[in-house]
């Protein structure tokens, strides 16, 4: 989009011809003089449906949900306020604490791994590769696929007689081959692998956009000054892409905390509840078992965690960007 004419464009109306000058670059919009307090374009009530929708579906529903977490409602009939009972139950139940731990593990694990690998790919594809666009398309492909669908492929790969174990056995590593998905220690790692696989492209794309904005001159100047590859990366490139890092990690974290599809497809929460997370537990408690109050309490916990991290993230990155 542009508010000026590019070369070759023709004015559509009298107005355009008069108002818009020809220029090659973008122009900063000059704020139109307004009478204070009056909306000059559009009607204020155009925003009303949108606001109502959002307030209703997000805020009102969430508050009601929050309220339910203090009750013992089963979805039908009457309920009673039970105060903090649901929360006490959560912290006394080892499977729920395990779910909490899994939630955090998957979120942080996937963010760290997919960002490091994504950054690596972005750096590698950044300068001068002839086929960088094709490679970028290929690496990004898993991101658009349904997480459910990709989980089924990986379920096959991790199967006891699937390709991974076949390769391991072929390499003589028979003892390493195991029932990955049914193994209480390793099952959560299989989910992590699927998450990272799907999100590398996502991180990569954000970093590629960020890297493209880094001026070449600074890097070349550093190279001339004798800085090594690593020094150039750490002191020049990385600070320049701080905003990209902020975005990629925030989004990755928020999404990682909500993982659901992959777990349902790969392990269903097993073995013996070893891969349950808060999200899957909310589903099972509320919708499968009908313990709406308990499920709401779990959901409230998840919400608070996500909000907490989002706020922390904002503080950290806002502080950093001020330095630039």
């Amino acid at each position, binding site marked *: 989009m542009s508010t000026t004419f590019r070369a070759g464009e023709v004015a559509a109306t009298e107005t355009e011809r008069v108002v818009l000058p020809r220029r090659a670059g973008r122009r900063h919009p000059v704020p139109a003089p307004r009478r204070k307090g009056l909306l000059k374009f559009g009607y204020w009530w155009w925003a009303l449906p949108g606001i109502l929708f959002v307030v209703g579906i997000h805020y009102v529903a969430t508050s009601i949900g929050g309220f339910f977490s203090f009750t013992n409602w089963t*979805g039908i009939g009457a309920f009673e306020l039970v105060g903090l009972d649901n929360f006490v139950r959560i912290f006394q139940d080892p499977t729920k604490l395990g779910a909490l731990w899994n939630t955090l593990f998957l979120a942080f694990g996937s963010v760290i791994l997919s960002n490091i690998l994504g950054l690596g790919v972005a750096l590698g594809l950044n300068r001068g590769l002839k086929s960088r666009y094709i490679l970028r398309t290929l690496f990004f492909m898993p991101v658009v696929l349904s997480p459910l669908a990709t989980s089924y492929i990986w379920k096959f790969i991790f199967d006891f007689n699937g390709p991974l174990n076949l390769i391991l056995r072929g390499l003589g590593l028979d003892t390493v081959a195991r029932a990955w998905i049914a193994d209480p220690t390793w099952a959560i790692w299989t989910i992590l692998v699927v998450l990272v696989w799907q999100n590398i492209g996502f991180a990569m794309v954000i970093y590629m956009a960020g890297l493209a904005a880094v001026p070449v001159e600074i890097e070349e100047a550093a190279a001339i000054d004798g800085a090594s590859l690593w020094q150039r990366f750490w002191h020049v490139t990385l600070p320049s892409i701080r905003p990209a890092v902020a975005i990629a990690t925030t989004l990755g974290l928020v999404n990682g905390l909500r993982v659901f599809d992959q777990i349902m497809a790969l392990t269903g929460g097993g073995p013996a509840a070893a891969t349950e997370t808060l999200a899957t537990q909310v589903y099972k408690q509320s919708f499968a078992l009908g313990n709406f109050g308990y499920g709401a309490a779990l959901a409230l916990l998840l919400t608070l965690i996500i909000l907490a991290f989002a706020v922390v993230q904002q503080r950290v990155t806002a502080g950093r960007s001020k330095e630039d």
Partner: protein
Amino acid sequence: MTQRRRRVTRFAGLLALPATAALVLAGCSGSGSTGDAGGDADSFTFTFATSNNLESPYETLAKEYMAANPGVTITTNPTPNDKYGETIRTQFQAGNASDVVQTTPGSGDARGLVPLAEAGFLEPLGETATSLVPSGSETLFEVDGETYGQPLDFTIGAVVASMGTAGMNGITTWPTTMDDFYADCEKLAGDGKSMIALAGAAGPNAGLTAQGIAATRVYAEDPEFNTERADGSTTFAESEGWADTLQTIVDLKDRGCFQQGAEGGGFDAITNGLAQGTSVGSFIPSGSAVEIAAAAPAEADFKVQPFPAADGGKPYVLASSNYTISINAKSTKKEAATAFVEWLATPEAQEKYYEASGLLPISEYKNLDLSDTIYSEVVTDITNGSYTTLPNNVWPNPAVYEALQVGVQGLLTGQTSIDQVLQNMDAAWTD
């Protein structure tokens, strides 16, 4: 034409096309969904649990019914057994469940009909259903005097074993003591085979295995255990029989009675193991034997065998009606559904059910001569009453059975201890 205007028209066109399509199709689907299956009043949907890809007896029955009643279309929805309760409950809650749904008696399973009926999800059935309820177990089928599930079967829960496979590996008679059993395990394990195929990752099989063993260790000595637990005069943690049951499972694993990778095995481990002869038996409902026998060579010769009692104990098996058919209270096809359900109670349907599934028909089993069937080895146990109802049918809520299932899985992987499992089962028991 300016570039801008061209872009506008193209963009508008792009947006208009899906928009109109969406509206048109939404209109169509909106009217279509209220009159599902083609708006035919005699067509309905039927959901049941399945553990394999073989044709389920319910599928066979549906086909029979359709053949006998042209104009009726039954759309079957086979649903995986290990997610069955969760799936139908989610559907019932949203009002999206099928018209006819397979459930289970009692309240001890997520698919138990008592809590579903209490939540208002099921339609009360009529006289036909009530007449089939085994006397003495009305509390498992009825709520407030109304029957909500029509029993179909009389299932015997013990080990379904391929005597052909056993014979090929040098086991001529089914072991009747634990020592013999372990000896046979070792013999088979040496060849890379196993006595028992266990789907450790599938809750229902883990739970059924435990209950099958519990029949001999708990209920043989104390048939009233469930009532005593409900009274509060005993607990799982205090029960030596239950501790013994769980210990037996651990012993079976340690002594190679389960197949390799049992803790991660799914239902396919059982189907393939039994059909291909790499495992001798499995704790599956007697009905599944016929399904699997169809996929196995004729020499397989499946028989229902009692699990050996503990030293000095009595032989005991599980036997009860475990499958009921219910009608969705929100169904718009109740007449057609009721006609089908009533047909299921007729002798022809029961006969067909028996043929297709091997499950004893609820109305006829006492009159049948079973000496030449897969039940020949357990006939004496049934006739002299050495059996108990499937325990989880009688337990008060699904969480107890779930704790048992998860506990067995945990014992197999070494994640938990026997005491912990029993404590969890007690904690889940709410009165």
